[in-house]
């Protein structure tokens, strides 16, 4: 019986060498690498699409004017290129969104990760996914036609304009709740159970264990989730275009209509600026700014996640 396999095992040189060439393995690897490179090509494409007009823009408009003035109106006559009104609007709407989404999202995450039964989690996580999938035009429509009138009715003293940063920011916040909740829940779930048991074994309650052990241990994951949510909020277009408006005036009051960077791009980009005109290049300059901001924030978040992974490995 053993004769059968002994025949294949003469201890001769080369018997362990490759019995047949495996070009297929190389081919497969090449195809896979190519697929992975598509994402790099995308980034390069974005950079190319943005870079040339942006460089040309700054050949005409000085960086000093762009970042040094609060007067914005590149399509007016005479044009004005101080980008601060857009930045302020973007920051303000993002802030409102974060104020809404972080407490709610984090609390929902703690509930799902630490309190909810497996059954409950199995029901609510998909429901949160639905919320994450609701098209942003729908949120915008809801903000414009339901939330703003409701807020105007409930709080007349706020003196809300028909389009305003408050309602837009609120709904952007609702939009990013699932991002905060789901990613934070993931990182809380990744906290080793041993830490929880360690805390319970010391007589800590569930609340203390959640707040003092689980959340700090998942902290960098949570921060990464929040940063990703912030970059989604900062770049959100349809909600702010529909419910936040396009008025590009430097204002801090969230009851006013204001234009974010993304809203400006949508407005000007779907409009009439002729290719090559300074107004057209402005779209790309603002696009570059938005790209750089979100890219930088996400780079930070990626670093966070990496650091966080190192802790338990």
């Amino acid at each position: 019986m053993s004769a059968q396999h002994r025949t294949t095992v003469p201890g001769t040189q080369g018997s362990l060498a490759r019995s047949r060439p495996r070009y297929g393995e190389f081919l497969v690897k090449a195809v896979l690498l190519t697929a992975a490179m598509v994402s790099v090509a995308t980034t390069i494409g974005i950079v190319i699409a943005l870079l040339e007009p942006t460089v040309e823009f700054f050949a005409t408009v000085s960086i000093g004017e762009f970042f040094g003035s609060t007067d914005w109106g590149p399509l007016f006559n005479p044009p004005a290129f101080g980008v601060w009104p857009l930045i302020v609007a973007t920051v303000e709407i993002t802030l409102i969104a974060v104020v809404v989404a972080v407490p709610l999202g984090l609390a929902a995450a703690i509930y799902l990760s630490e309190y909810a039964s497996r059954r409950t989690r199995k029901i609510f996580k998909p429901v949160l996914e639905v919320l994450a999938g609701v098209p942003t035009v729908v949120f915008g429509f809801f903000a414009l036609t339901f939330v703003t009138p409701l807020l105007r009715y409930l709080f007349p003293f706020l003196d809300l304009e028909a389009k305003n940063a408050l309602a837009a920011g609120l709904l952007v916040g609702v939009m990013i709740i699932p991002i905060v909740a789901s990613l934070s829940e993931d990182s809380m779930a990744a906290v080793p159970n041993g830490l929880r048991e360690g805390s319970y074994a010391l007589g800590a309650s569930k609340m203390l264990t959640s707040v003092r052990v689980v959340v700090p241990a998942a902290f960098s994951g949570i921060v990464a989730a929040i940063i990703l949510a912030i970059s989604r909020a900062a770049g959100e277009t349809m909600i702010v275009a529909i419910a936040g408006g396009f008025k590009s005036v430097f204002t801090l009051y969230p009851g006013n209509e204001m234009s974010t960077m993304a809203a400006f791009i949508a407005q000007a980009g779907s409009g009439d600026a002729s290719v090559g005109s300074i107004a057209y290049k402005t779209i790309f300059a603002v696009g570059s700014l938005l790209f750089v901001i979100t890219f930088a924030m996400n780079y930070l978040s990626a670093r966070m996640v990496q650091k966080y992974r190192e802790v338990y490995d």
Partner: protein
Amino acid sequence: MAILSTPRSAVQLASKGRPLKEHLFRIALMASLAIALAFLAMLLLYVVEKGWPRLNSMLWENQPSIRRPETSGIQSGILGTLWIIALTAVMALPTGILAAIYLEEYADKTKWYNRLIELNISNLAAVPSIVYGILGLGIIARWLQFGFTVMTGAVTISLLVLPIVIISAREAIRAVPPSIREGSLALGATQWQTIYRQVLPASIPGIATGSILALSRAIGEAAPFLMLGAATLVRFNPEGVWSSFTVLPLQIYSFISRPQEEFSVLASAAIVILLAILLLMNSVAIWLRNRYQKRW
């Protein structure tokens, strides 16, 4: 010292009024989740209530009309959206899954270029969709001269969802325990055999779930199409990849820009259809997840 307190009376193990605070905390947590979901419920109720009069077969049988909003339909938008979804599935899913396989199974994490690809993908996931619109406009429509066609829209949306597909496919592949790979390799299987015959079959449900969720993000996008300047009144269905087209979200955007109340009702009805497609896709994802969830 511990010994001094050794004999203990019954009351000592009783609770010391902790539950109230505990309960409040728990209620606050549940309330947060409830508020988030209440928004969803309110939104659904609002659009269903408002769109109710127009939720009839005219909606999908008729083409949009600005002359007769009360009988206008959204057929071109539904079909445009379906075209975009189908093409995106064909382009983004294979690319994304292959890239995920590369990153999980082949890439040597110590090599700078692999780290670059990874970082790049996570960064792309955060790039605003309007910026993808600029990419579509500048590179695909104008530079590649694809024009304002279904193809341009689909390529743009494919690039937009690609990072999401890759990230979720990686998640699914990573969930296949290393012991399965080791088992296969220890039998003399090559790496590709191991991937193709063990890893992929085991991770298909997870990949499918992630892909469906990525596509459901794709169907809701309007901003890139806005940049691409797709026509708002399209009264014909796309006939091919080089055809003009519109998509539901853009149609909704154009309806809510109209002064007549009938268009607002029509927009609500169209939103209900869009959300129905979304819910259907999510349900398939959930079903897949529950049906094929692996217990190792």
